[in-house]
Structures are given as structure tokens and as C-alpha cells.
């Protein structure tokens, strides 16, 4: 039933891709009905070259998550799938909303199913993780709401994001607004130093929850930067780009080192997510086409790769009920097919050429080197760090002698697991070898956005 729903969702999303007009940066497939006339809020949806990709990614990942949860979830199954489908719908709404309040509504409402997913089906420390996740994100988003209301007054009563983007604003106002948005999206991304909720949430969430968190919700933060920070406060974005780049580089380097020290597989992947998202924000705030497109490609790619990594860990966890690296070793002997996928996704996570991870990272580094050699240099360390922590984990878990009896009794992946891992692997390879269709779709939009940002909007 849930599978049917999610496949329907994907099927509905596909015409977005095929019918999409690459030549314009304006919103397409626009839908608009007046909703709350007191505040002239519209129920307005539409997609451009950026959001369309995420709607597709979201619909795709939902199908995977539903398949992945199929036999694994044994308690309150109907509630589990209901929560995921609601969540998926809300996230599509976030990406498609063109009215600020509508965006906010989806953005916040999304917390409710996620809170329940972590809290009901999560690991032993789930209550702490769920509450921390909720309050962290709530604090940020409420500040964003205050910024929306302020902009509503400035634009003489409109909550339309396009009007927000047009209205001229003084520099100091822009900086305040920038920080209000920053509070909301930096937590979501998450950027260093407000990332601490993520490892907790990831570790405690059930596999499906981790996948959705890593693949989609993190993207919402970065998407928010593109949709709100850059176009609404372009001058502040320029002024604060050094600040943002510094935070991004700290995420890339420092968090990369932290990941190296983890003994919990999920935690390791969680930290690697933060480092990868650092790449994304770095790409956005160097203000050139390579950087931004690279950031976007990285987002999509990370959506697939991190989803796959969490699913791989989930496969082991379902069998052994441990996430500790030390509990494993020599898995390849008992699960050869699984080992193939795990190694493949590990490579993709490390950014091996011909996988999707490489394309985004390479484009961002290329963009960064045009701005400043040292940005690029520091960013490039991730290729080493990423390889180090991922492959080291893969080595300790998959290869070597069979470590204990748990591993000896493992059974290899079944058809269902093969199906979702295989589909993801194909997607990762395809994007790594032939990323053209994706960059084509986003190109016009990115160009227009960069022009808008460069023009500034001081009055």
C-alpha cells in the first residue's frame, strides 16, 4: 500500500522532468490559489531548475525507503509508513512552495513526522535525539518566521518569495535578515558549529529515518540558502561570504577529522554528511557557476550516496543489531554480494572518479580555485580525509579475518535488499559518468540567480 503510494508519487513527479523547459529560470508548473486573504497568502507552488531536481530526488528516495522498511519494521507498521509518506509529501511541498508562509508551513510540519519516526522506531537513546532534533530546528525556523513577517511589512503585504527577492533592502537590514535565515538553514544543513543534533538524530533514527534525514532534509537547508539567503539578501551574502566559507571549510576539514575518530558506523557516516554539506555551502558562497552547480550536483549525489551508506549499515544492523565497527570484520567472507555494494558506495562516498561523488567535489574545487587557491587547497583535503575515514571503515568492517560468531552466521542480502542497493548503485554510476542532463536542467536557473546576486539590491 505504502509502496504503491510512493511509486505513484514518483510517477507523478516524472513529468516534471520530461516537461521541464531548460531555457528559462522562471517558475514552471505554477499553481496558485488565494489561501488566507487576511495576509494575502497564496497556496502557490512551482518548480525551477533547482527545486525540480529535489522533488525528483525526494520522490525517488521515498520509494527506496519504503522498500527498505518492508520487512524490517515490525512494530506499528502502518504508522511507520504513514509517517514516511506524509513526510515525503511535506518535503515535496518545501521544494515547490513559492509563498514564504507556505514554505514555512511545510518546513515546520515536516518536523512532526520526523520527530515521531526517530522517537518511536529509533534506537535506545532516541528520546534525547528526537527532542534535540526538534528544538534545534524549531529555534532556527522561528527566527526565519520573524524575518518573513518583517519582509511582509517591507513589501507592503506580500508573502510571495519573488516579491521578497525584488524588494530593495539596506545593508544592515540585509545582514540581520541573513542571520535570521542562517539560523534556520545552517541548523538544517547542518553547518559547524550547529551540527551537534545530526549525529545524535542519525544514530538513533531507524534506517529509513536516517536515509530521509541525510538524503532530503539536509538538502532543504542548502536549498534554503539558495532560495532565501542569496536572492533576498545578496549584498549581505557577499559581505558575509568569508564567514560562510570559513564555516564551510571548518566543516570539511575539522569534521572530516572527527569522522576519522568514530567507532560507530552511523555516526561516522553522519559526520561525513556534515563534511560533504560543507562542500555544498562552500560551492554556494564562492559565487561562480562551477561552484554553485558543483554544490547542487554534490547535494543530489550525496542524496544517493548517503542514502546508500545508511541502507548498507541498516542491512548489517538488522542482522547483528550493532552499529559498532568493532563488532564486525571479515563480512566479505559471509556476505560477498553485500560486500560488493558496501565497497562501491564507500568509494562513492570518498569521491572516486566515475562515481557521482567525484563530479560535485571536483566542480566545487574548480570553482574555488578561481577565487582563492587556499580555499581550493583546504577543500581538496577532503579527498584524502574522505577516503581515509570511509575506506578505513570499509576495511575494518568488510575485510580481514572473520571477527566473531555473529559475523560467521550472517546471511547474504536477499532480493529486496539487492533491489534497492542495485538501483542506487546504478544511479550513482550514471551520475558519475554522465552528469550532463542534471547540470543542463539547473544551468539557466543558476545563471539567473548568480546575476541577481551580483546585481545586489541596495537602494
Amino acid at each position, binding site marked *: 500500500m505504502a509502496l504503491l503510494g510512493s511509486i505513484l508519487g514518483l510517477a507523478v513527479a516524472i513529468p516534471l522532468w520530461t516537461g521541464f523547459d531548460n531555457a528559462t529560470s522562471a517558475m514552471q508548473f505554477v499553481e496558485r490559489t488565494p*489561501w*488566507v*486573504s*487576511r*495576509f494575502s497568502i497564496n497556496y502557490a507552488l512551482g518548480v525551477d531548475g533547482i527545486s525540480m531536481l529535489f522533488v525528483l530526488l525526494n520522490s525517488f528516495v521515498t520509494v527506496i525507503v519504503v522498500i527498505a522498511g518492508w520487512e524490517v519494521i515490525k512494530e*506499528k507498521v502502518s*504508522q511507520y509508513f504513514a509517517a514516511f509518506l506524509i513526510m515525503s509529501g511535506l518535503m515535496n511541498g518545501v521544494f515547490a512552495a513559492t509563498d514564504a*508562509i507556505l514554505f*514555512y*508551513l511545510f518546513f*515546520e*510540519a515536516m*518536523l*512532526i513526522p520526523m*520527530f*515521531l519516526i526517530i*522517537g*518511536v522506531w529509533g534506537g535506545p537513546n*532516541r*528520546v534525547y535525539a*528526537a*527532542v534535540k532534533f*526538534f*528544538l534545534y530546528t*524549531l*529555534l532556527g525556523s*522561528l*527566527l526565519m*518566521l*520573524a524575518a518573513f*513577517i*518583517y519582509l*511582509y*511589512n517591507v513589501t507592503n503585504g506580500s508573502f510571495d518569495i519573488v516579491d521578497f527577492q525584488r524588494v530593495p533592502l539596506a545593508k544592515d537590514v540585509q545582514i540581520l535578515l541573513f542571520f535570521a535565515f542562517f539560523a534556520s538553514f545552517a541548523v538544517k544543513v547542518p553547518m559547524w558549529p550547529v551540527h551537534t543534533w545530526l549525529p545524535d538524530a542519525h544514530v538513533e533514527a531507524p534506517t529509513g529515518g536516517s536515509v530521509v534525514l541525510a538524503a532530503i532534509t539536509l538538502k532543504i537547508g542548502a536549498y534554503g540558502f539558495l532560495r532565501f539567503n542569496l536572492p533576498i539578501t545578496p549584498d549581505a551574502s557577499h559581505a558575509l561570504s568569508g564567514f560562510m566559507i570559513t564555516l564551510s571549510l571548518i566543516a570539511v576539514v575539522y569534521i572530516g577529522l572527527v569522522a576519522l575518530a568514530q567507532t560507530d558506523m552511523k555516526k561516522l557516516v553522519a559526520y561525513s554528511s556534515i563534511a560533504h554539506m560543507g562542500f555544498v555551502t562552500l560551492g554556494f558562497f564562492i559565487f561562480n557557476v562551477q561552484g554553485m552547480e558543483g554544490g547542487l550536483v554534490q547535494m543530489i549525489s550525496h542524496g544517493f550516496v548517503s542514502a546508500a551508506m545508511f541502507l548498507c549499515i541498516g542491512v548489517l544492523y538488522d542482522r547483528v543489531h550493532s552499529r559498532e565497527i568493532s563488532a564486525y570484520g571479515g563480512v566479505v567472507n559471509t556476505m560477498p554480494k553485500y560486500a560488493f555494494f558496501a565497497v562501491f558506495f564507500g568509494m562513492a562516498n570518498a569521491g572516486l572518479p566515475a562515481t557521482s561523488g567525484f563530479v560535485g567535489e571536483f566542480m566545487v574545487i574548480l570553482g574555488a580555485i578561481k577565487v582563492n587557491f587556499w580555499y581550493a587547497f583546504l577543500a581538496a583535503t577532503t579527498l584524502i580525509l574522505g577516503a581515509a575515514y570511509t575506506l578505513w571503515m570499509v576495511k575494518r568492517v568488510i575485510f580481514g579475518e572473520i571477527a566473531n560468531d555473529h559475523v560467521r552466521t550472517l546471511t547474504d542480502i536477499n532480493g529486496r535488499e539487492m533491489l534497492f542497493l542495485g538501483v542506487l548503485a546504478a544511479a550513482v554510476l550514471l551520475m558519475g559518468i554522465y552528469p550532463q542532463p542534471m547540470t543542463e536542467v539547473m544551468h539557466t536557473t543558476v545563471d539567473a540567480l548568480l546575476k541577481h546576486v551580483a546585481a545586489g539590491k541596495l537602494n
Partner: protein
Amino acid sequence: MTVSSLNLALAAPEIFLLVMTLIVMIVDLFSAAEKREGRLFFLSIFTLVLVAASLYAPLDAPRYAFNGMFVVDGMAVILKAAIVIAVAMVIIYSRAYLVARKLFSGEFVLLVLFATLGMMVMVSANHFVSLYLGLELFALSTYAMVALNRDSAVSTEAAMKYFILGALASGLLLYGLSMIYGATGSLDVATVAKIIEASHANDPLITFGLVFVVAGLAFKLGVVPFHMWIPDVYEGAPTAMTLFIGSAPKIAAFGFIMRILADSMGGAVGDWQGMLVIMSVLSLALGNIVAIAQTNLKRMLAYSTISHMGFMLLGILAGTKNGYSASMFYSISYALMTLVSFGMIMLLSRAGFEAENLDDFKGLNQRSPWYAFLMLIVMFSMAGIPPFLGFWAKLTVLEGALNAGYTWLVVFAVLMSVIGAFYYLRVVKLMYFDAPTDSSPIIADAGFRGLLAVNAFGLLALGLFPGALMTACLNAIQRSF
């Protein structure tokens, strides 16, 4: 003075309610014990429905009755309708609970109806004397309601506290009003408004009187530092009475404050604005922070009320029509949310058992996913998470305050509501993440179940389509002021 100049027709709903209340009194007297409960229930609901229907009037310019002592304007009509509906819901929710405790008597119904009459007069009064009259009729009825369970020491204590502090507040209010009378020579709202407007609020006597008036109002609303009675009364009173005190009176209190502060002392807005800012800040902080430490759900909701009233003040202190209408929307939304939350407490209570501790909600999802879901809606709505009604209520008041230039206050309120979200989340956590300690079945009659579902899903429905109610509030305020 002739009868026709009194414009009695305008007060028809109130007069009808009074007559019906007296009839209920007689019916109570002459009914056999086994038929009494059903008759009282039917009659009171019947009365309230008719009153609500008779309120219907186009939103027009204000019309006056009783030589200007009584006004019917858009605000009064909407608030009265909300009050009457809320009271009818209280009676439906309370029936089984009170019957199980042998408290569903003629006195309860009478007191509720009299209190309702008092509230209706409060929001429709246009003269300090009629305002006070309505207030006292309401207040005296509720004092008695809290004490209705006379064998319970806790209830009696709560009633005593409520009465003493309430009487003190009434005294403060009267004292303040008398000073304003001294300064302006009138008790009529419109005349006072004109004189204050003309004097540009420079008269120290008016300012002095205003301080007392605001203190009295703050007590009735239960905002810090006049909040002390709220937790004790909420906890001590039988839950049905708490439900009553927590819902409709908040709407009435809003109307009352509007009549006194905005209607008659709109000219002195600068004087009362500052006081409300302080009270709002304190309420938001104290209500939200202290609520975290509570283990008793009724007490927690009491502190949450305090913070909600702090939120509501944000709209009033803006001093603009946008702000007023936002607060009006807030008070109605809040009443709707409170009804479900206390309804849930009564649902889980049985004869001889009060489900008033947070732990009583443990594992509700396993006992009944349906009721847990309803409670989840209320909790998220109170925390102000979209797409529920509470979000729009917060949005409108924040917009009102921001529009009036209180940016720092809005940011403060936002931070406080994050703290507030924590204890609402804790309820959700208890229901969904914990295992139940109590596995007794949850029993309720069809009326209760239906109303609870309609009420909770109303929060969702109004959250998805808040436009109509919001516009109605705005139109009402614009035509009334």
C-alpha cells in the same frame, strides 16, 4: 424614558438566556432525581444553541441599547458566539465526568449559564457599570463552581484563593475606574474616550487610575505578576470546572480588556502599552519556563495558559487594528485548543481516578492510537507548529507586534515559544515513545467522542483554512473601532 428607546431587541440573546436560566432553575426543582440529569443537559444545550443562533447579525456599525450602556458590534457578536459555543462544548465534555462524581447537578448548570450571561454582558457592555456588573456576575459564579465539590479540601482551598484574589482584583479595578471617573466625570465608555482623547492623556489622575485598572484586568487574565491563582485553581478545581475557566472566560477577558483599554482609553495608548509590554515579557518567560518543571498536567497547562496570555497581549499592546484582531483570533483559537486538552484529561479519568499527571498519558499510543493522535494535534497546535491553528494564532499576533515596531519583543516571544515547545513535546513523547503503565480501556459516550474528534480536527481544519475566521476577526475589529 420609554421602553422602545431602550432597544431591548438588541439584548434579546442575553434576555433569552436569563429567562431560560430561570426556567432551568424551576425544572431542576420539580424534576424527579432520575430524570433530572437528562433534562438539565438537554435544556442547557438547547438554550445555548438557540442563543448562538439568535446572535446572528450582519457585521454593521455599532448599535446601542439601554441608553448607551450596552453595545452590539461585530466584535461583540463574534466573541459572544465563540463564548456560547465554547460553553456548550464544556457542558458536553463535562457531563460524564461530573455524573461519575455526582456533581452534575442543577447548581452546576445554573452557575455555568449565569457565568455565560456575565461573559456576554462583559463583551457587550459600553459603560463601566455594566462592565463591572457582567464581570461580577461571571466571577461570583465561577468562585462557586470551583468550590462545587465541597468535600474536597483541595477544591475548597482553590476556591478560597480564587475568591480572595479575585475580590482584590475587582477592588483594584473599581478603584482605578473611580479615579478615571474623577478625572473625566463620566462612566460612559464613549464619553471617557472623548475626554481622554482631548486631554492627550496628560492627566496624572488618569494615568494613576489606569495603573489600577490594568492591574485588575491583568489579574482576570492571569498574566504575570498577577498569575498566582492560576496554577492553584487549575489544579484544585474539578477538571470540568478547569475546562470551563480555561476556555470561554479567556475570550470574555479579551473583550473586556478591549472595551476598557482600547475603546475607552484608546487615547492613552502610550500609557498602557508599556505596562502590557512588561507583563507580556514576564508572562512569556515565567509561563514557559516554569511549565517545564511541572509533573501535573493541569498545572502544566495552567502555566502554559499564562504564556499564551502573554502571547495574546502582544497583539493588544500593538495598539493597532491589526493587533487587536490578531489577539481576538488568538483568544478564540486558544479556547478551542484548551477545550481539547482538558477534554482529554477528562477522557482518561474514571470514577475515582483523576488522570491529571503527565505520567497518566504514558503509552497512550498503544492504548489508543486515535486519542493519542488527537492529543498530538492539540500539543503541536499549542506549541505553534503548522499546519495547526495555533501556528496562525502566533503568526498573527507576531505580525501585529512587529508591525507596531516591537521587533525585540517578537524575537523574545519566538525564543520563549521554543522553550514552550519542549514541554508540549514531552507530552507527545510520553504518549508515543513510552510504554503504558495503565492498560484500562478508555470509555466515553458517543457525544463526547464525536465532539472531541470534531474539536481536534477543527484545529487542523482551521489550520489549513484559517482565512475565514481571520478575516471575520479583522472585519469585526475594523467596524467596531
